[in-house]
């Protein structure tokens, strides 16, 4: 009897508790004309048909409701959990597929904060593009910009879900550096990255095989820095940079990263031969950030007259040049074209990237110097290659630094690293580029919990779109990069050295 009574009481209490937890207000007191202040800001964006749910929140608001509609018909309604509109992934995918090529209207209702009685904001539109984006994006996660790190890695994220996996991290090279990953024509089957540690080198993943080459020990013995894989395979262009950093105090910028020398080399992955053309390997001019034309026939690169760094940094302006490349003879042509002349157009150019369809060239343009990440004025600029005219891509840009970027294999999407949220941590933004060059508003890479964009203690570095997931054999990696002892002796070493 007693037991039965207790059971009933427990059931009643549990039901009350569950109802209290799950209760969501109904009805709103106000309607306002303003757009909802959602985070991330997805108002008016164009999204690929295969993107992960655009979960969002409103700061300080506990209860939210999002209603997705088309032509007055409700497609999906989602109530928030813990202040986050967490859209069910299956229903989201279904909605995107059914409405590809059309706009859906999103009405947001919010209860809490300044509106405890509830408010309904003006509806906004999301355009679902039929253009698919590549399935995966890879990026390095690292503390934002300074010299030191303990844990770092290159990660890959499935864009249609929230799945993030390790591509390679520095547990394979004794907490050294893994950086500058590059793919051949977006292929997950052909890629490379640098491992900086004892027993380090450049690791190539080709034809299901892992191999390692220390570029500093072959041919002209130049270290490879910023890579670019020829879209036709076989060759990888590198700049070879001697890079330093200075740390500012008291101004708008924390850091200046610069080179005191940089050259251009090309590596043949089949023969191991390195081409170091004398014209692009001398002290008077610095070459950096190579890029290939989609047909692999031209190599583009940034180039500047050398100056005394960092004192003369304001006089350092990188032009964009190009030179023909003969794949059969592995030689560079005589003529060097100037694609972007900073003397005429001003600024300095970094990260040139040509769309795979060959129509557009996008680059980061900063006031001076070579490292857009730390230049808050750095913006994306896009040139139509057929006539050299600039195309407006202002919807991608912000008041803060836009830096590394990559094209999708279809040329219709861009991913861009931007520091716009807090001026310190770069996050990945996605923007649509139509065939005529019309640029959609950039939106933040969706996360299951939007807070994750704020909480993460790492910066997104070098976002690169890939057509699939990379699977490197970890045992072989460890074999290639084994750097010996662990790092746990650090703190004992510290005391010894102080003593």
């Amino acid at each position, binding site marked *: 009897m007693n037991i039965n009574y207790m059971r009933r009481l427990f059931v009643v209490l549990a039901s009350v508790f569950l109802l209290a937890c799950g209760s969501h207000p109904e009805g709103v007191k106000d309607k306002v004309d303003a757009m909802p202040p959602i985070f991330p800001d997805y108002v008016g964006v164009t999204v690929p048909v295969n993107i992960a749910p655009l979960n969002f929140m409103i700061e300080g608001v506990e209860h939210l409701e999002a209603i997705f509609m088309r032509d007055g018909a409700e497609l999906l309604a989602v109530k928030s959990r813990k202040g986050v509109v967490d859209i069910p992934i299956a229903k989201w995918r279904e909605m995107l597929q059914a409405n590809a090529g059309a706009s859906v209207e999103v009405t947001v209702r919010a209860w809490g904060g300044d509106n405890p009685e509830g408010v309904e904001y003006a509806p906004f539109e999301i355009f679902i593009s039929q253009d698919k984006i590549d399935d995966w994006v890879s990026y390095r996660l690292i503390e934002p910009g300074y010299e030191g*790190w*303990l844990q770092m890695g290159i990660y890959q994220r499935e864009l249609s879900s929230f799945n993030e996996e390790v591509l390679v991290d520095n547990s394979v090279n004794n907490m050294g550096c893994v950086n500058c990953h590059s793919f051949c024509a977006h292929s997950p089957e052909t890629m490379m990255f640098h491992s900086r540690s004892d027993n380090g080198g450049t690791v190539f993943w080709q034809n299901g095989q892992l191999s390692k080459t220390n570029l500093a020990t072959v041919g002209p013995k130049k270290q490879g820095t910023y890579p670019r894989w020829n879209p036709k395979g076989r060759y990888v262009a590198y700049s070879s940079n001697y890079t330093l950093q200075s740390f*500012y105090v008291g101004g708008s910028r924390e850091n200046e990263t610069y080179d005191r020398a940089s050259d251009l080399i090309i590596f043949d992955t089949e023969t191991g031969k390195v081409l170091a053309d004398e014209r692009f390997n001398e002290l008077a001019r610095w070459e950096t950030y190579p890029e290939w034309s989609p047909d692999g026939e031209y190599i583009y690169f940034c180039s500047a007259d050398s100056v005394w760094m960092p004192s003369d940094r304001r006089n350092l302006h990188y032009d964009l040049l190009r030179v023909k490349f003969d794949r059969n003879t592995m030689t560079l042509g005589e003529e060097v074209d100037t694609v972007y002349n900073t003397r005429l157009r001003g600024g300095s150019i970094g990260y040139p990237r040509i769309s795979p369809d060959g129509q557009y060239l996008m680059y980061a343009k900063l006031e001076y110097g070579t490292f857009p990440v730390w230049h808050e004025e750095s913006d994306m600029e896009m040139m139509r290659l057929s006539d050299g005219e600039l195309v407006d891509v202002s919807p991608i840009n912000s008041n803060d630094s836009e830096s590394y970027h990559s094209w999708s294999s279809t040329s219709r999407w861009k991913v861009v690293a931007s520091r716009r949220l807090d001026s310190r941590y770069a996050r990945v933004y996605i923007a649509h580029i139509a065939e005529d060059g019309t640029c959609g508003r950039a939106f933040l890479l969706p996360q299951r919990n939007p807070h994750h964009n704020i*909480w993460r203690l790492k910066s997104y570095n070098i976002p690169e779109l890939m057509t699939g997931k990379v699977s490197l054999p970890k045992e072989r990696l460890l074999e290639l990069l084994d750097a010996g002892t662990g790092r746990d002796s650090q703190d004992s070493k510290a005391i010894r050295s102080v003593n």
Partner: protein
Amino acid sequence: MKKILLIQSLLLIPLVFVFWIVAYPETLQWMEEYSFFSTLPDFTHLQVRLPGDALRYVGAFVLQFYRWTWVAAALQTLFAWAVMALASYTLWRVLRIEKLMWAAYIPTAIFVARQCLYRDLEWSFVWVIVMALVAIAARLFVRRPVLAKYSDDYQANTSQKRGKNEVKPKRSRFAMALIYVILPAVLLGAGFYVSLNDMDCAFRERIHKMEHLAEEQKWEEILEFVTPEVALNDDALKRYAILALLETDMLANRAFEYGVTTPDDFYFMDRDEFVGIYYNSLLYKSMGVDDEVIHLMYLLNEHSRLGFSFRSLRTMADAYLRIGDALLAEKYLTILSHTTCHGAWLKPRWEKLAALKANPVPRPTEPSDVAVGAHGLQGQVQLLNESLRLLEAFPTNKKIVDVLLCGLLAICDVENFGKYFDKYAPQAYAGHKMPLYYEEALILYSYIDRTIYERFPVRQARLNDFQRFSQYMNSGQKSMARQSAPRSFWAYMYCSTPY
């Protein structure tokens, strides 16, 4: 068994607890500062990987509670007690000889001797797990406890077999004291002795004490602890004394008493470990250069076992609050709010943040031209170059002026001292009494610039002192000269240094 364990526990618990409270209170606090734990997803996604890093995860979780010294000491005691109790159980299970139960203190003493080295708790857990496994093995495999010839059970059994009544073996009070108290206490004492003689642990305790006093701005206590005699024998402590002198406006009155001979003595130059990095951050904080404090915290993270530490996060949050960067201050405060023990610490900071949001500090719009770190020349004048550059940004900062001027005096560069004193002192020292060394150095500088007294009058008494000092020097009576002005800059320059 229970009685034995109770007696052993009554002995061990107070002794080990008091030992930690008395011998290593600063180290206990530092263990929490060096660690990091968070309930945010990245902690298990990036920092620790379960199940491989399970011990690290548990260690990091427990270390959160080391924020309070008495809790930390209690937890350390708990580890030692667990080792003792498990050893006791195993011994009892295997031998059942009461008079040998003191032997449980042998592994306990070894553990206590080594415990100050187990700063991330991983080894403490390993000890407990191994001891537990041994105890489980004893439980499983010693099915019938061995009735050793000298065991109490054996004696009782044999008495019964001989038809005698069971008689409890009687021991003298001394024998009882020896078994239950003296031998265990001696073993434990030996463990304490070994621990206290560990140079690593002793050095850490001293240096962490300085760090904590500096954090709490207890400069007088630092100077009480680090007397000039102590400073002469310990370079690390010397720097804390110099920091305390700088903070108490005494640097230019007493620096040479503490064995300063070069500007390098003011900070840890090019130091790549956590003691030097943290000291340097305290120095830059003292000089009001928060950008460099943040930079150094990123470097400090490299030396934390988890890539971040509570110390660096707290320091960065405070630095961003001082700078007025609400976004980043909020980020780090939010991350700290996802830990277990920061409620009280966060409360006043949330209030500061709210005040900052209500009255935002305008962000600098232009990059600074002043950089620290990488611009510097190598060698002993690095800090001088740095302070000169910092004065371009903060020309009235008295502490930076003191570092520059005292640094110049340390290398006996009177000419540059006079030049920069003339430039910076009128603003930095407006309303302040001229320090002793500066007055003495100006008397020397007056031989280079005879007009200096017009701008900076020097007391007649000091002129008379110098008259007397120089008379002794001119007559070759160096020791008399030193005695006439033993703590003066003149005595340092002419009687103590190689310059």
